[in-house]
């Protein structure tokens, strides 16, 4: 599929930024080898997967403030029932967790369609409900996972291939085919103009259910990867809220328009790298982390501002 010009520019600028930051970071480190690369990829997997799910939903004209809670719930489910288990059990629970996440997403989409309440409101409420469920299942930190299973996510020793696959397989196996399919186009359609989409024969309600279900798929992947990376789970609302807000920031930095209908998943995946690098590079200099928060906030505003100005110029 051909990307729109705007999207190409955006992705290229973000890619440029990522390259600059990567060089910067690599200069900061005594060695920049496969362990360091693995470190970076593992550092962004959860937020990147979540950002992809969020981006998809925003593209479809929605927003999911419960996406972090969804991931935490799946994290809790899989970690609880995979603790001390063999490979097959861990795999089974991982798959089941993803299925549950898809169902949770679909139900969320269904509620939004059925009730006619704004996405923000519904997902604000479901975020409490999902954390409630997570607390039921795993009242405190704990759980575990089969180590061989976890290896498929975190890789062995210094190899970064496994995490790289975890990061890119969803894009290759889910996003690329989806984007070419009629369903994927329908996501853009309902995000761009619900009325026009309906007149074009898109079943808006059903598409929204699928939209949130696919978003749930990414949240589920995020939850499973959390289980694999940490080999445990923690059911805390603070964590899920932070993750959700980061996913929105990454989506926007990645060129997804909050108005819907515009953007892709490559940009947000790259943007989560930017969000990882800023504090990490500042950390490398021993700068007070409070400043990195200020810089990250200011940079986000700046990127969105410049992007907005460029877009306004492009329209003329």
């Amino acid at each position, binding site marked *: 599929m051909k990307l729109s010009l705007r999207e190409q520019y955006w992705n290229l600028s973000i890619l440029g930024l990522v390259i600059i930051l990567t060089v910067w970071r690599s200069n*900061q*480190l*005594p*060695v*920049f080898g496969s*362990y*360091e690369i*693995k*470190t970076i990829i*593992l*550092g*962004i*997997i*959860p937020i990147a997967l979540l950002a992809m799910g969020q981006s998809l939903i925003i593209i479809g004209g929605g927003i999911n403030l419960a996406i972090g809670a969804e991931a935490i719930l799946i994290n809790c489910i899989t970690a609880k029932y995979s603790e001390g288990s063999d490979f097959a059990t861990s795999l089974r629970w991982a798959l089941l967790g993803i299925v549950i996440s898809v169902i949770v997403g679909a139900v969320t989409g269904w509620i939004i369609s059925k009730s006619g309440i704004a996405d923000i409101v519904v997902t604000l409420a479901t975020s409490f409900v999902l954390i409630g469920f997570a*607390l039921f299942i*795993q*009242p*405190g*930190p*704990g759980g*575990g996972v089969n180590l061989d299973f*976890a290896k498929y996510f*975190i890789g062995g020793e210094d190899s970064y291939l496994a995490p790289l696959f975890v990061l890119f397989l969803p894009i290759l196996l889910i996003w690329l085919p989806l984007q070419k399919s009629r369903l994927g186009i329908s996501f853009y359609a309902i995000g761009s103009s619900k009325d026009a989409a309906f007149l074009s024969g898109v079943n808006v309600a059903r598409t929204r259910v699928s939209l949130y279900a696919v978003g749930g798929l990414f949240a589920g992947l995020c939850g499973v990867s*959390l289980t694999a*990376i*940490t*080999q*445990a*789970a*923690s*059911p*805390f609302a*603070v*964590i899920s809220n*932070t*993750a959700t807000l980061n996913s929105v920031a990454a989506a926007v930095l990645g060129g997804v328009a909050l108005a819907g209908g515009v953007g892709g998943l490559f940009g947000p995946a790259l943007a989560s790298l930017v969000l*990882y690098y800023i*504090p*990490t590079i500042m*950390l*490398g200099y*021993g700068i*007070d*982390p*409070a400043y990195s*928060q200020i810089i990250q906030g200011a940079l986000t505003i700046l990127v969105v501002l410049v992007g907005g100005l460029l877009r306004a110029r492009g329209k003329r």
Partner: protein
Amino acid sequence: PANANNYVIGVSNGWAGNSWRETMVCAIKAEATLSKKVSKVLVSSRNTDAAGQSADVRAFISQKVNAIIINPGDKDAINPALGEAIKAGIKVIAVDGPVSAPGAYIVSNDQKKYGAAGAEALAKAMNYKGNVLYMRGISGHPADTLRDEGFKSVMAKYKNMKVTKEVFTNWDWAKGGELAKQLLKPGKFQGVWTSGIDYPVVEAMKTNLRGKYIPLVGADNNEFLRQTKELASKGFVGIVVSNPAVIGGAGLKVALDVLDGKTVASESLLTPTAWTYKANKKEIDSSYFVGQEATFSSAVKIPGYTTFSPAQLFRCKAPQDSDDGARA
């Protein structure tokens, strides 16, 4: 291979925007500066989950720090990353809460005793009878679970004392105050135990009980110390349980000892004390800092571990920030 006077220390704090944690970090910086053995303290402090803290730890490994001081959000979940660190020869010191990674050192307040010490003093103040409002921290949080164990073990001893209401404040000051206002009714409770969310509860006693104070267990928060002092004459019994934030400094001390090749116990637990104004007037008076924030953790030294003065702590300068620092 690091130069003995040039250690680089990484600090990972997974919960930010809270003065206890800020003081903990400042204590690490102050102690590191004083030791003259540290060239840099790299701090990552943000609200994050175990995956985020693992990422921090791995970034420290890439950075080849000599030791990592971590305040873990989770006992087990950071183990994969900490394991990699220990394997790479980096010393790992967990402060405030434990980690289960083999080879890591733990410097922590004894949270079980924290729960018990406050409960014991509360029982005494309540004359071993009456109803207790039990205001915990975050449901499922390891420290909360340990404190609960200690608290309940004491309560079990006294047949005439009953926990009639148990709530979670999420260690949120506004929420704690709100809960206290919603729950404190005249005559309903004879004492309150809080997991450190203390001073708003005293405010709630003023409004709800119209000044008829009941004993309250809190932590060594600056504002609570003040209330304990000033309201003592009005019949208020405040029980101050120490939970020093400067434990970060103790963590740094342990880190340096380990780096210097000294033998250090794998677990150092500090025993909390419970003060009341009647019994510990001197300690409370000397611990209260007039010009400090309400939530400031007032215990500014841990004998045997920390060496900085309050002023040095308040400066909060890492070696790389100081004009006299070892090296930029």
